[in-house]
């Protein structure tokens, strides 16, 4: 016990001496939480629309007004030819072309049938899919308006209609930041915990001070614990700062119990620190440790369900995500913070994470050799 206390003293002194680590601890939550949610706004809006109106009728005008009034679309160009509009797509000035053919109004009234042509720049799949869906929706609504205008009231009612009401739970304003902030907080905790612990031991190796520790009677698990505890505390500090910042700036208050949230973070940090230690036992230089950490971080973040939903991944990828600790944290954070889930809902996640912590740390202790 006394040994650990001395080791802890040493670690804390080293941490507080290193200005770049302190800066990282304070700046990372601020920068990430201030800029990332602003940048990571996947809400589909401001879709640039080019309209090729060959009809110039009241109907085509009404339709365009209806589209621009929806708030999703910005009218980038009007009139001209399809070729010109296509050129706008090629130069990324427009995302969507709506072509209204000549005689749109006349044909619609006379022949009861008229086609509209929409071309979407689909390089960005999400935007194209949603943008196209919005536009078709507006056109369908417009179509209904016209029918109501032409038919005697009451006639439409003779057709059986299913009335669909849709409700959005947990985030009724459909605010994208609410979705991103808990996820970014999860990445933050992982980065701080993982990178710091990995770089720390490797630095002792590179500088050679680890030899001095190796010749002392300090036990393996003492050493590892002495390294774990300071960064575990730091991780908690960073997480608390992050939670505070997200309340201060985005007004996000966890719906669920804070104790549930923190106990998950406690177990999670153990797992991530264990991973950092493991990486450090396999590397010799800081550069190597940095690159290997970076490599895994990349995979963790991409396969963590932050940007794309895990459900739509193929089966093999879903299996891979089961070994990604970040995936569980992101899920749990969203569940507790946004939906107010409790002990019962996250118990499986908590158990899995405990297993991660035990396996990774045992592995790291076994692999750490006092003699080389």
């Amino acid at each position, binding site marked *: 016990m006394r040994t650990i206390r001395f080791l802890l003293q040493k670690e804390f002194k080293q941490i507080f001496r290193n200005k770049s680590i302190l800066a990282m601890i304070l700046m990372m939550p601020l920068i990430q939480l201030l800029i990332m949610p602003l940048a990571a706004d996947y809400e589909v809006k401001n879709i640039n629309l080019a309209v090729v109106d060959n009809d110039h009728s009241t109907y085509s005008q009404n339709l365009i007004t209806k589209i621009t009034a929806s708030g999703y679309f910005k009218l980038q160009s009007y009139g001209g030819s399809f070729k010109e509009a296509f050129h706008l797509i090629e130069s990324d000035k427009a995302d969507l072309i709506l072509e209204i053919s000549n005689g749109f109004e006349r044909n619609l009234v006379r022949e009861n049938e008229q086609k509209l042509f*929409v071309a979407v720049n*689909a390089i960005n799949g999400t935007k194209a899919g949603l943008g196209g869906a919005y536009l078709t929706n507006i056109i369908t609504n417009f179509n209904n308006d016209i029918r109501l205008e032409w038919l005697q009231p009451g006639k439409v009612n003779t057709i059986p209609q299913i009335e669909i009401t849709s409700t959005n739970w947990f985030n009724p304003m459909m605010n994208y930041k609410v979705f991103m902030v808990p996820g970014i907080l999860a990445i933050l905790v992982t980065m701080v915990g993982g990178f710091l612990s990995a770089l720390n031991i490797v630095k002792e190796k590179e500088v050679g001070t680890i030899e001095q520790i190796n010749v002392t009677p300090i036990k393996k698990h003492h050493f590892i614990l002495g390294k774990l505890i300071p960064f575990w505390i730091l991780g908690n500090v960073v997480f608390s700062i992050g939670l505070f910042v997200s309340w201060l700036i985005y007004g996000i208050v966890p719906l669920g119990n804070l104790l549930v949230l923190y106990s998950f973070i406690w177990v999670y940090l153990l797992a991530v620190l264990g991973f950092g230690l493991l990486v450090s036992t396999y590397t010799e230089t800081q550069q190597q440790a940095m690159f290997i950490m970076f490599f895994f971080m990349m995979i963790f973040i991409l396969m963590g369900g932050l940007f794309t939903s895990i459900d739509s991944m193929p089966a093999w990828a879903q299996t891979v995500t089961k070994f990604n600790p970040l995936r569980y944290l992101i899920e749990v954070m969203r569940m507790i913070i946004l939906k107010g889930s409790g002990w019962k809902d996250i118990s499986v996640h908590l158990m899995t994470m405990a297993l991660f912590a035990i396996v990774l740390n045992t592995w790291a202790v076994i692999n750490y050799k006092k003699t080389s």
Partner: protein
Amino acid sequence: MKQFIIFVKKEFYHVLRDRKTLLILFGMPVMQILIFGFALTNEVKNSKIAILDNSKDMISQQIIDKISASNYFDIEKTVSNNQQIESAFKEGKIKLAVIFSENFNHNLLHQNKAQLQIIADATDPNTANTLTNYVSAIIFDYQTQLNKTTTLPFNITTEVKMLYNPQLKGVYNFVPGVMAMVLMLVSVMMTAISIVKEKETGTMEILLVSPFKPALVILSKAVPYLFLSLVNVASILLLSVYVLDLPITGSIVLLFAESVLFIITCLTLGIFISIKTNSQQVAMLISLMGMLLPTMMFSGFMFPIENMPVPLQVISNIIPAKWFYIIVKAIMIKGLGFSAIWKETLILGGITLFFFVLSLKSFKIRLE
């Protein structure tokens, strides 16, 4: 010239000796392409939903069959009351719930009106939107089938054509982005670290007192990374063509020429960082925070630039990767020629020249 080749050779030895880093350098783009190509899709499929059927009649059953027949949804369970729906949402088991009102069939046929409610888990707004749209479309379809006998007048049909990427795959967006990011990582970070390492270990002094021109010492450091980057470009392109089926529609020569330009931009940036810093850790932090993070955020492949607040949009203009991303997209996917991207090329060239001159100015031969 002979001296220069000898120096370049020395640098190659340095690079090739560190196997672990090398493995990551070549493994990274491969992993990224595979993850982006196969694992990450923006399309929604197999989403888990719950259905609460308060009516249990023929029509509601038919609609349920129709929903479960589509690829988009997996019906997780048929719940029997509202509480169960709420707890299923909280456990994260479902993303959407469909609720049929009582006497659905009866109301529909006799009052011509029946209510159906869709509840979406909007913690993820885009998925919620997409799923709601899909369910509505399925129900709308069913309704049109039901009403086949009475044709509606004044039909506007919309024909939607998806350009460049008809299946709405994520790859089209990601491959150019991954290219920009990997090149940034290899060229900026590795160059910066390798030069600073010589400073840190003191071998830089030895190089500087040699009869060889100091500027060429630095230049010879950049050459191996130019090669490594080109190997990475080639491997990314090969993977994307043969594994991801993403064809290169434009000219390959032009694509490589632009890549070389971007690599040179990155190398000058790396050299600039290495001249300004003295320790590996600082160089790493600067290239990570100052280069890689902005590249990820502002190049436009992960986060949509047009949604950002104006100050961030302005900042995005000084990020070289943004211009490279536009260029690669134009050549690879849209198949455009040089006339469409001369402006972006000029900007990249300008940035390179700026940092080159700045590096030359601040490069010191003497120790402080």
